[in-house]
């Protein structure tokens, strides 16, 4: 489901359909998180990506859409020089091989305690309050910067003036 809708995003010409396919893809990723036993991450994925970022994305599409050009006729293909295409292809194949090699060469075994079905939420809370205190607070600063910057850049004028 995940891969199918991701392919659909790549191939479709309608931006709106692509956004809705992304919705399915993100849901699929959330399901993968659940299967991997990361319940908090799954909820986060649902709330932030599906609930927040996708809405933002659709707003963005509707914002930039011009009424005249309803259906894009041009293909999605990006024109690149053939030389660059060659190098890009080579690089991506190299990275793929590297990662595949890594994946095959590694032994996956669980170090430490066995996987429990207990929720990760409580552990996460305690960790966040004690040992990961500084990143937590600094993440607040990061969000603050993002808030100011987003508000500053998104509006095309100086509202106080």
């Amino acid at each position, binding site marked *: 489901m995940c891969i199918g809708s991701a392919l659909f995003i790549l191939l479709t010409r309608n931006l*709106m359909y692509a956004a809705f396919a992304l919705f399915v893809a993100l849901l699929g990723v959330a399901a993968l998180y*659940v299967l991997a036993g990361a*319940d*908090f991450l*799954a*909820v*986060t994925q649902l*709330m*932030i990506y599906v*609930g*927040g*970022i996708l*809405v*933002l994305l659709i*707003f*963005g599409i*509707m*914002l930039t*859409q*011009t*009424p005249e050009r*309803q259906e894009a006729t041009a293909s999605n293909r990006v024109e690149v020089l053939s030389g660059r295409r060659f190098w890009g292809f080579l690089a991506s194949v190299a990275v793929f091989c590297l990662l595949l090699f890594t994946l095959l060469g590694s032994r996956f075994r669980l170090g430490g305690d066995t996987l429990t*079905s207990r929720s990760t*939420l*409580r552990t*996460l*809370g*305690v960790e*966040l*309050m004690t040992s990961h*205190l500084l990143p*937590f*607070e600094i*993440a*607040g*600063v990061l*969000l*603050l910067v*993002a*808030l*100011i910057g*987003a*508000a*500053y850049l*998104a*509006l*095309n004028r100086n*509202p*106080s003036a």
Partner: protein
Amino acid sequence: MLSDFGIILLFILAAIVLIMVVLGASRLLRPNRPNEEKLTTYESGEEPLGNANVQFNVRFYVVALVFVLFEVELIFLFPWAVVFGNVDLIEQTDGRWGWFALAEMLVFVGMLTLGLAYAWRKGYLDWVRPTPQVPHTPSPVPPALYEQLNEKYAPKVKVP
């Protein structure tokens, strides 16, 4: 033994199956005679006008941006809320844990609240009002003349 997420999965499956059963049954039972009127979009009885894909205004975008940021903050609040009132932890630390956690969260939330206050004060959150367009007719006749005409031909009202 089903986990919580297993139950959710069951719910999702049940919902899909139920809808398929209901719609499938009605499809089998109902007569199929579509016409123009029936196929239009349902808009509470109004005639639909134009395409639904209209261009949105920027103001929605800013609100959505701020919304996403605060949603991220909310996500951080979740694990905190679970352990904040934990009796075991509070007893282990003679109650210091609760105050400590509360203070940390206040700093975190306070920082973002200050940011929000900043954006508010700056007017980023103001709803962008469209400036009303005053109709302007390029007429060679100055408005004062119109006034005179009105005065002249206005029906005389007797002032008692």
